[in-house]
Every structure is written in structure tokens, then in C-alpha cells.
């Protein structure tokens, strides 16, 4: 399969803190990659660098073989990389449909007429299950609705790669199942997904490949099964195995 996104030797320092050290990531078209790791491992920093919000200290990001680091977030978005935020950041005083219309108006397909954009926005909102909330102000939506709205806004830019930053955090099990279903459908629609996730159930259910970061260093990579039995990963998550009571599932 074709390689869509490549992160080459990405390093990022904030003052004296090394948030990322020589991270390499290769993402194939239409795959679903998971990025996991303990808190502060640099997962969100990696997303910020891919989406152009931050510049890497060294290394580069290639999208379809073309260098995108340094382009700025707006241009990266127009090339086809969209994201959601870990702590939801919808445009609060705008209605759900207007949130989506921002994505439609300024993402990759800007040539649509206004009526077509509105029709398309309603379609996307129905897809994520917000069909009856199109005129609700984003501020008044519940957390799960806001998360769906963020996905809708990202989909509206017609991305080739969708970056999902902990979409299921803070949701109850029913809502988690809903979002997993939505993510499956998005991937089935031909969109490549990279997701940061803490909840292993979700990672195991969805991801084809998993990259594990710890203190900014890539410590493992492989299928979810391989990764969870990797010793370095277990050590990063629960510390060193010292007695036989340890839980190998953790």
C-alpha cells in the first residue's frame, strides 16, 4: 500500500524539556494507526507537529512525499489533514451547522456554492448523529455531542488523514461503542485515521498498527497484540515486573 504520511526523525524541545526525540512514523493509506503512551509521552505534541500547529525542532513531516512541516496549520488543513482536540474546542457561540460550515468553507473543497455547503453540512451532521441538533449552539451540547461535532467539523474539510486526539476520553461505555462505530464507518469511507488513545479496549478493537511513546521516545511499534505483550510497553505503563501477581492485561 502507498505511504501517505511519513514523520522522519521528529524531535521537539520546549526549553530544556525534550517532548519528542527522533520519532519515526509511517502511515499507509486507509490504515488505522494508534498512538498510545502514558501521560506526558508527547502524543499530542506529535499531533500538533503533524497538523502544523507546532514546528518540529528537527526532522520533517512528509505528506504524499511532500514536506508539510513549516507550512502552517491552515495550509496543512487544505492539503487534507484534519484533527480533533483532546479537550473539545468547538466554536462555542456558533451553531452546530456553522461549526461544520467552517470546515466546509475553508477546507479542501471550497468551490461548493453556499446551498450545497449547507446541504453537505446537514449530511455530515446526520452521519455523526447530530441531525436533530443542527441549530443548537455548540456551547449547549453535551460532551459526547461536542466530540461528535468535532469529528463532523474535521470531516467537513474532506480530509485524507483524520487525527483523533482521545475522542473517547470522558465518555461512558455506550457512547464509546457509538464512537467506535462512527470511526469504523469513517475508515470504510476511505479516510486514513491516526488516533491517540488511552483506553486499550478501543485501541485493540480498532487499530491495525500501534506506536507507543514514552517520555518522547518511541518504545514499540506493531500490531496491538504484539505491542501489549512488549516488555518495554508493560514497563512504561505499570512499572517493572517484580512479582508474579502482576496483571499481564494492563
Amino acid at each position, binding site marked *: 500500500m502507498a505511504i501517505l504520511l511519513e514523520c522522519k526523525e521528529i524531535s521537539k524541545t520546549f526549553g530544556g524539556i525534550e517532548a519528542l526525540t527522533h520519532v519515526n512514523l509511517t502511515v499507509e493509506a486507509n490504515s488505522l494507526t494508534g498512538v498510545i503512551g502514558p501521560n506526558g509521552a508527547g502524543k499530542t505534541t506529535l499531533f500538533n507537529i503533524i497538523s502544523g500547529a507546532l514546528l518540529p525542532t528537527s526532522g520533517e513531516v512528509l505528506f504524499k512525499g511532500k514536506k508539510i512541516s513549516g507550512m502552517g496549520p491552515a495550509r496543512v488543513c487544505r492539503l487534507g489533514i484534519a484533527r480533533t482536540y483532546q479537550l473539545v474546542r468547538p*466554536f462555542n457561540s456558533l451553531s452546530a451547522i*456553522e461549526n461544520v460550515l467552517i470546515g466546509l468553507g475553508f477546507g479542501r473543497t471550497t468551490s461548493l456554492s453556499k446551498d450545497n455547503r449547507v446541504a453537505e453540512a446537514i449530511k455530515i451532521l446526520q452521519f455523526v448523529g447530530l441531525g436533530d441538533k443542527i441549530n443548537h449552539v455548540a456551547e449547549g451540547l453535551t460532551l459526547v455531542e461536542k466530540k461528535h461535532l468535532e469529528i463532523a467539523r474535521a470531516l467537513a474539510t474532506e480530509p485524507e488523514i483524520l487525527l483523533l486526539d482521545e475522542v473517547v476520553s470522558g465518555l461512558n461505555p455506550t457512547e464509546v461503542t457509538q464512537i467506535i462505530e462512527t470511526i469504523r464507518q469513517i475508515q470504510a469511507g476511505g479516510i486514513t485515521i491516526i488516533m491517540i488513545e488511552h483506553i486499550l479496549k478501543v485501541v485493540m478493537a480498532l487499530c491495525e498498527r500501534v506506536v507507543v511513546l514514552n517520555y518522547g521516545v518511541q518504545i514499540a511499534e506493531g500490531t496491538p497484540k504484539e505491542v501489549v505483550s512488549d516488555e518495554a510497553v508493560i514497563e512504561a505503563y505499570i512499572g517493572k515486573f517484580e512479582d508474579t501477581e502482576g496483571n499481564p492485561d494492563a
Partner: protein
Amino acid sequence: MNRRGKKFFYLAVLLLCAVLAALPWIGFSYGIVWIFLLAVYFTLALSYDIVGGYMGYMNLGHSTFFGLGAYTTAILLNQGFNLFAALLGALLLAAAFAAVVSYPLFRLRGAYFALATFGLISLIEVLTTNLRDLTGGSGGISTPPGNHMLPSYYLVLAVAGGTMVLSHFVARSKFGLALFSIREDEEVAAAFGVPTTLYKGLALIISSAPASLVGGIYVWNMTYISPNSVFGLEIALSPIIMAMLGGTGIMIGPLVGAIFITVVQEFLWTKVPYFHLAMYGTVLVLLGLFMPGGLVRTRFIKPFIQWLGLGEAVDYFKNADAERIP
């Protein structure tokens, strides 16, 4: 807006236009001067609101464009240009100035942006006091004399009306939607493809145009200005107070605020001169504390405004069911 509201609204607008047009002919001369100034302040407040309300950048230096427009018009009129050429010159100069300062200014946000823009006024004021050959220095500048009250009254009303139309179309456009998204969260707006630097600059240029025009008309009518009269605190702050008192980010807000303030000021002026200046400061503090949404968002006025169909701050996607005043 429901149908009854719409009918009522258009009727009211028509009636207002007729009354305003007829006023000079029924011997209401003091009222004309008063409405002239009201329209000047209202236009400033409304054009301020494009940057200050729609986009959420508090531009305390909005009166710089007014002053630039006034001085440019005065200088061009003295050079023998006719009024419209002079106004065009003022418009272009103010727009060029906005374009130039937008780049450094919009690297700042929040209070830093407000302070930096406030500094612009002093910058231009110092320039006008010192470029004596061009501007007459601190003594001010006079334009060819004549009684222009009547034409300038109509002209300023036309500019005020034009600004309302401009503001309405900006709010309904994709560009306006982008400005609202910048107000809500600029980083996210950029991450979703909004060309923020370009749009912020454009918004400043658009908001500079009406301000420079009313500046030009003002000097044509008054025939004399000094640095103090066009770069003073009153002209700098009162439009912003009007916009904030009425409610920012919604077209009806500056209108309500401008009428309210000018009426109150009129009463105060006859009782205690200059007391209104102290009032501005007090109002600004109280507004921030108790009524950040402005008059149009208060419990008593909001339902009425919504019934009129003017409650839709964001107008990109119209829908009757939407409760829009945030």
C-alpha cells in the same frame, strides 16, 4: 423573524427613513446637528464592531481612521479637490494605513492588542501636531468655509445606512463566519483552514472605510479640526462604549448603544458639562462587571429584539428556530 415581525420591521425602517429625510424641511435645525453627530458616532461604533465584535479584537485605536480621514479630506479640499475626490482619497489612505499596521498589530492578542492600537492614536496625533506645513500643527486646519449642514446631514446618514448594509452582509458571508470563528478560537480556526492573518487584515481594512468617510464628512461640515478634536479621548472611547453598552457582535447593539448614550449625554451636557466623560469610564467598568453582553442581551430587551428577528448575531445560516443571542 416571523412574518408579523418582518412587516413591522420594514414598516419601521421605512418610517424612520421618511422622518429622517423630512426633518430638515420642518424646521428642526438643532435636531439635525444632533442627529448628524449621532450618525457619526453610530457609524464609528458599527464599523468598530466588525473588528471588535465580530472578530473579538478590541481595537481601541479605531478613531485613528476617523482622524486620518478627516485630515486627508481637509488637506485635499484645501488643494482644490472636490468633496468626493477628497473622500475617496481619505478612504484609500485609511485603508492603506490599516493594511500596513494590521501586520504588526495582529501579532498581538487580547489586552496587548488593545493597548497597541490605543498607542496608534497618539502616534498619528503626534505626527499631525508636528507636520506643520501639511496639517497646520496644533493650531488645527480649516477647510473652505460654507454652510454644508444639510448635504452633510444626508451624506452621513447615507454612510451610516451603507455601514449597516455592509455589516449585515459581512455577518451573512463566509468571510463573516470566519471572523466569528477567529473570535471563538483563533488557533482552531487556523487548523480548519481559515487564512487568519489575511482575514484579520481585511477586517481591519473594511472597518477603517466607514470611519474614514465620516471623518471626511465631519471636517467638511465643521470646516475646522484640530489634533485634539479628532484624536481626543472622547471620539476614541465613546463609539466603543456605545458598541459595548448596546452589545457587541450583533448589528442592533451599536445602534441601541449609540442612541442611548447620545440621549443621556444630551441631558447630562445641559446639567453638568463634561460629566459625560466621567460617566463613560464608570459605564465601561460597570458593563464589564454586570452586563458583558450589553443591553440587547438583557432579559427584558432580548425577547423583543428576537421577535423583531434582529437577534441573530451570526447570520450565515438562517433558521427561525435558532436561539441565537449567545
